[in-house]
């Protein structure tokens, strides 16, 4: 019983000693974490600002990757799920069907699915998208702007010398932190997971 009491009791010297050691340890861990974070966030990658993009079409032709690493992303939170979708259908079409002649996308990279009258969901087929931005232009002009061009960093070479940025007439390309490499306008930040 006396032994137990002795074990529990901590004298002042031991307390200060342990406290000092703990402080040094915590400080070292914290410092390492900060340095690691700072080191990581120093990496930047190229990204396209949808607010500045004018959908000139150069993303499709100037990227060193084949096909272009710039793809259309769909920000579902902003989408109106319209039947008459300005991003999917050519202007002035007479019938709102999935027939090739009605589609705006030159590679049929947008899939349209009926949900319930009168709503449709649109999904980008990444393998077919060439990053031409025609759908983005249509969506911006007539819809909510939920279709947006972005550099897909799963496909981008990250060569650090972006060939599109050199010729972008709107100066829409900019460097963004590698740990947050997408720049959507609007609400959602998780579109990379959905695409």
């Amino acid at each position: 019983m006396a032994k137990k009491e002795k074990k529990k009791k901590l004298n002042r010297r031991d307390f200060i000693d342990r406290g000092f050691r703990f402080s040094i340890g915590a400080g070292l861990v914290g410092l390492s974490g900060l340095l690691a974070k700072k080191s990581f966030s120093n990496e930047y990658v190229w990204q396209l600002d949808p607010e500045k993009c004018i959908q000139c079409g150069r993303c499709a032709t100037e990227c060193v990757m084949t096909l272009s690493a710039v793809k259309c992303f769909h920000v579902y939170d902003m989408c109106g799920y319209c039947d008459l979708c300005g991003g999917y259908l050519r202007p002035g079409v007479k019938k709102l069907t999935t027939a090739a002649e009605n589609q705006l996308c030159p590679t049929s990279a947008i899939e349209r699915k009926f949900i319930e009258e009168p709503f449709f969901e649109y999904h980008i087929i990444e393998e077919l998208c060439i990053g031409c931005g025609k759908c983005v232009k249509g969506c911006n002009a007539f819809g909510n702007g939920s279709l947006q061009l972005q550099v897909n960093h799963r496909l981008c070479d990250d060569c650090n010398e972006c060939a599109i940025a050199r010729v972008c007439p709107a100066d829409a390309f900019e460097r963004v932190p590698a740990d947050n490499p997408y720049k959507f306008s609007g609400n959602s930040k998780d579109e990379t997971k959905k695409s």
Partner: protein
Amino acid sequence: MLKKYIDRIVLSLVILISVIAFIVWFTYNPVQDFTASIPGLDNRPPRDASSEIVNIGERFDEYSTISTILTGKWTRFRGADYDNISKENTPLIDNWGDGPKIEWEVELGEGHAAPVIYNGKVYILDYNELRKRDALRCFSLETGVELWRRSYNVHVKRNHGMSRTVPAIIENYLVTMGPMCHVMCTDPNTGDFLWGIDLVKDYDTEIPFWYTGQCPMIDGNLAIFAPGGKALMIAVDLASGEVVWETPNPDIWQMSHSSIMPMTLNNKKMYVYAAVGGICGISAEGDDKGKVLWKTTAFSPTVVAPSPVILENGNIYMTAGYGAGAILFNVSENNGAYSVKVIQQYKPKDGVASEQQTPLLYNGRMFSILPKDAAGMRNQFVCCDPNDCTNILWTSGKEDRFGLGPYAIADGKFFILNDDGTLTIAKASTERFILLDKAKIIDGMDAWGPLAFADGYLIMRDSKTMVCLNVKKQ
């Protein structure tokens, strides 16, 4: 000998390889993995006419009564003269002073329907999403107290708003058209139901995208509608609800969001309507009432929201959104025969166009807000000579851009409502854009419903709230 033998083997191998290569080339289909984009890949079910039984005007709820001395009127879409210009002499404010004077505000169902005002009462066709009812609601202009409500059950899903029409009113009749093309006539003094027509059931009307946008017209003792389907246009006797005449629709033009506008050419009165399919002029008087006098398919976009702007000398201006641009054409008459000649037709970046609102004609100039696809001048308030709509005389500039909201003229001023509920006052000048003041009236969105002026009050709305402003100059 050996060499000859080797030569034969090589030759045979070459022939064999060539034959195999040819067969492979001939039988290989390089597009075998392609999928043809054909109609129906989206699994859209076939459209069938609504089987819902709607008992138009079935319910009536009375809440209050008022006595008022107000006599101001805003009797239909774009006002009494279809020009969106208030003719009242009440002096109105030039600026917002200490802030907008909001007399009252009322929650509405999501939409863009706008009211008419008649002798101190405000009438609006609202949609009650909770109870699933079209509801004609009557309010006091001065206090915003709801006086009565005439309604009927009908199922409408949210689709960028539900209600979007303006009633038409005269002394004893008030006509409305609901989102699903249900026409209702009531007595505006008592709220009594007089008659109703289901245009989908009676005329095979195809309900437009985002529901009905056509505002009913009252002309004398007739109500005029353009149902599309079985009849391009119909006239209904206000007193009895009986159809007086119908215009056949052999081209099966469909109902648009555009409204019918009256026109007089060489003393011949006619109704001009921009359907989905084309634009037509239909006789409004004489023995040929209801007959198509002229029509053109030169301008036939899939979606048509603005209404025709009737200009001088038989000229008509028509615009639409979604890249359609605009057309300026002339209708002429020679010994009773009418002909149409296109003067100008262009894309939205090349001249004055509009996506939703109908441009204003004032003092020989035409005013509009350019759509989003109008390149550098997008969303700017612009002025042009209506004889040359591609020559924009001035704009509101890059600093003053607007959206899809309405604009009207009252007391020599433009009142321009932006999507977010900001109301701009500008001098109604034909020389340049003269901004007087602007203020955020409501923290709203999609404020697209037309404005209504009467007795120094201005009624505006966003997608869910209707607001009455006192804009009288003190």
